């Protein structure tokens, strides 16, 4: 039994609308970033120019290159640190029965619900005390508040679902817990770690509030803040072409990552939420 024609047509029309609304804004940003001067101020739906002036302006001369490196550094270090801390913690939380486990998981979960603004003044004091103000390490430090609970939570749910048998032999052989993690679990956990690492990376890459507050000089800023602060002398001099070029530069790698790791990201996101 085939569905009536109007249903098929309607369905594909809906699909077209969904795709169009998702893709168009980014398409338009690319299109704008390739326009320069007067062309910018005419509304075009199709590419007319292919002018790389905006990209040249962003990547040469200024500090934007340095700011990209800042973001890469912060996000990478945050991911490595939180994965290291999370693997052992997740092992304890998922494979060992001990009193207070449920409460600990609850604590971890509730930290991931913390509004960042609620810790902002306290963190500001800690960071000044540690002498980290305007240092990239302040971001590495503070981003732990959202990457760590997330990675612990997802890795715990993942490890919990692995069968008991895999470590029984190792326990019988008298292997230490650390050996069991290294030899038994790590090889099995690469997929989960890639997924959580990727999501944590994206989160750290996009973070704005801490990066805005804990950095005070241009050369120390990360890209979201840099892009937010690009402005002209007046409302009419905002360099939209430059902003769009910068936006495309920092977004393309993310979009590529997401498209390549689509399945993994979807499973990671849902493991973080639905498994509750």
């Amino acid at each position, binding site marked *: 039994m085939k569905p009536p024609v109007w249903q098929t047509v309607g369905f594909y029309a*809906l699909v077209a609308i969904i795709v169009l609304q998702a893709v168009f804004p980014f398409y338009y940003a690319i299109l704008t970033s390739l326009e320069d001067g007067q062309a910018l101020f005419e509304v075009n739906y199709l590419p007319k120019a292919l002018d790389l002036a905006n990209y040249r302006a962003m990547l040469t001369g200024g500090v934007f290159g340095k700011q990209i490196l800042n973001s890469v550094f912060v996000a990478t270090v945050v991911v490595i640190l939180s994965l290291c801390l999370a693997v052992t913690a997740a092992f*304890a939380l998922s494979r060992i029965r001990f009193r207070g486990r449920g409460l600990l998981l609850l604590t971890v979960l509730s930290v991931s619900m913390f509004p960042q603004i609620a*810790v902002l003044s306290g963190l500001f*004091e800690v960071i000044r005390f540690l002498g980290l103000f305007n240092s990239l390490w302040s971001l590495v430090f503070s981003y732990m508040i959202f990457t760590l609970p997330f990675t612990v939570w997802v890795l715990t749910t993942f490890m919990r679902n692995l069968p008991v048998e895999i470590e029984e032999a190792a326990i019988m052989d008298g292997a230490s817990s650390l050996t069991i993690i290294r030899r038994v679990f790590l090889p099995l956990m690469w997929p989960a770690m890639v997924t959580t690492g990727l999501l944590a990376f994206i989160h750290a890459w996009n973070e704005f509030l801490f990066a805005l507050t804990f950095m005070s000089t241009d050369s120390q800023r990360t890209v*979201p803040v840099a892009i937010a602060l690009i402005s002209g002398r007046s409302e009419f001099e905002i360099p939209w072409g430059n902003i769009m070029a910068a936006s495309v530069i920092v977004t393309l790698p993310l979009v590529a990552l997401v498209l390549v790791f689509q399945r993994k990201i979807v499973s990671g996101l849902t493991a973080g939420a639905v498994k509750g």
Partner: protein
Amino acid sequence: MSANPVKSRLSRNRTRSAWLFLLPMLVTLFVVAAWPLGRTVWFSFTDASLDMMSEARWVGIRNYLEYVDFGGGEGQYYGLLADARWWRSVWNTVLFAVVSVSFETVFGLIIALVLNQQFRGRGLVRAAVLIPWAIPTIVSARMWAWMLHDQFGIINDMLQGLGLIAEPIAWTASPDTAMIAVLIVDIWKTTPFMALLILAGLQMVPGDIYEAAKLDGIPAWRVFRKVTLPLIMPAVLVAVVFRALDALRVFDIVYVLTPNTDATRTMSVYARENLFDYDQFAYGSAASTLLFLIIALITITFIMATRMDLEGKRS
């Protein structure tokens, strides 16, 4: 004497190593979350300022509420709870959260239902849907600021082309439309997340249910309402709560898209303004504390209401 000394020693060992393994994480969480939160709450009861944090003195609840007697029966309330701008930002935040999450749920449900069908190019469509999610919030705010530009924006151009509006709209600048602009960007950006979570719920619905309904000739709409919706409700609910908690602390989009306007200022924006722009550190801390309390209350209610399966017993 234990019946099985080997096993009990083993489990004691394992319990010890459990705490050892948890220690680094717990210490980190204490330093980045618990301690700063405690300090924020403490600051909210002091006269702390940005330059004099260590000399902060206890002032009671003055930052929250204080009655100043002018004498002769005259007087006025001061403090956060008497501040109309604070209540305006509370209202803005609640409005933002309710409207954005409602639209995201409906749109997310539609997209999830579409993606749950078998059709050619489904993988590509799913990839396309993920794009708004992948774009950093700041970037989407600026992209949309450009698209919503009053003079050169493509949105006004489209709407005028379709004859829907006569004059260009100053979306982000006008107080009447600023909140709408913020909502558009947020809904666009976070609907994919909602769609994915709901899709995960949909995919757990066994396919033979649909087969059976089809054989019985039950109309699709009724199958959706009577079978699909109740089955995916838990997944939808979790997604809604996650998003709502996220929406209540919204900062980036508002800060970048519509800076400095009463029409869109949210609780987080209000708190940060006071902390760092107006040098009202203690007062801003009080606002942060209240925001935290609101979110904590919602979270606790949710966890209690759903009795979340934390130990993994049910799985």
